[in-house]
């Protein structure tokens, strides 16, 4: 997929574990893991907002566009 999720980078910067973030955001660990590994098909604005609030960052810090290689 052309959209890359850089959540692990932000988690490392904030020195926060995935389970801690899951607790703060109100998502299950498995769903957050799906998002982190790039297996998710879509992300809700509400989820993005909650993650940005918890990590104190912008959506662009988490999501990155990379043109797909044909």
């Amino acid at each position, binding site marked *: 997929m052309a959209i890359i999720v850089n959540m692990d980078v932000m988690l490392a910067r904030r020195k926060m574990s995935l389970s801690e973030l899951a607790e703060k955001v109100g*998502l299950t660990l498995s*769903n957050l893991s*799906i998002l982190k590994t790039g*297996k998710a*098909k*879509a*992300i*809700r604005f509400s989820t993005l907002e909650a993650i940005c609030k918890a990590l104190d960052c912008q959506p662009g810090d988490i999501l990155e566009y990379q043109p797909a290689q044909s």
Partner: protein
Amino acid sequence: MKKNKLLSAALSVCNIFKLLFIIFIAASTVLLVHWHFSPDTYKDISITLDKTSNAVYTMADDYAVENSSDTDKRIHAKNREAIRITDLNHQSLYVFYLQSVGLLVFWLLIIQEIKSIIKSVKGLETFRSSNSKAFRKIGKYCLGIALLSAFKWIGLEGHSFFGLYFQFMPLAFAMAAFILAEVFEEGNKLYEAEQLTI
């Protein structure tokens, strides 16, 4: 609640039909075996062959089993011909039996698939890949029914009859089933996408 009642009723109807088909298959097999041992029992039984059907299209009832008390061997009324079972040669009767049982087996398999679909709908798991596969199977079984009812062969000692038939309804049902399979496939894709929306 209303939906569940309807689905439960449909499941019950499926179970009744399933039981009836199994009984018909068993009865046909028992009759065939019994005919081997005692063919004289069936000397008054005749099947009516309808020759009006042609190679283009027919919706006529092909076979009707009836008890013939007439002394005439064959009754010609329009294009219908009553043939005593004892006059049929063995191969012809086997083909007739296999055709009939094959049709019943296909119907049985279709009912089985419909039952699994109804159960999944009852369990609120409508758009799943299993249902798409079930509809595809139903389509194939309908094609099987069309194939089995596409010919008729009656072999007698002196002469024989072979007819080709084009049955529209099984083909229409097969097409509808394949379309529904595609619809359910799309539904399943949407469900999976929804599941992966975080």
